[in-house]
């Protein structure tokens, strides 16, 4: 698979793509995207990186 950056994928998957209304069990708009906390993402990225460094 082409080497792509997660941030670029997320721009498109969270901000783009068809938004289908109607009979869905869940669609991301229902979950209120604003709640995705950058801090949580960044904090967990730091943890991942530290774990990787520790394993190296």
């Amino acid at each position, binding site marked *: 698979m082409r080497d792509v950056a997660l941030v670029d994928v997320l721009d498109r998957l969270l901000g783009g793509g068809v938004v289908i209304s109607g009979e869905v069990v869940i669609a991301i708009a229902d979950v209120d995207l*604003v709640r995705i906390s*950058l801090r949580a993402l*960044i904090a967990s990225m730091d943890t991942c990186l530290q774990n990787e460094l520790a394993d190296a």
Partner: protein
Amino acid sequence: MTQLPQRINTDADTVEHDLVRLLLTVVELVRQLMERQALRRVEAGNLTEEQTEHIGLALMRLAEAMDTLRDHFGIGPDELNLDLGPLGPLLPPEPARR
């Protein structure tokens, strides 16, 4: 004479360091706002030269005091910031000085 091992209580140090950083960030924000406000007042043109000199000196000393405080706590200029999540950082990403 045997030397007692130094106990490094990293948790307490980190918490204190973080608090200092937080406090200095807020002070730095106020300082930057004051500089912007002062420039606007000076440019509005209704201050005497003496008043303008006075404001300039006060701001200059405030800037120096902030540098001293940061150096004292070993905090670099880039380290003063607060993450407000979706709103971005509290202070503009570029350091105002240095």
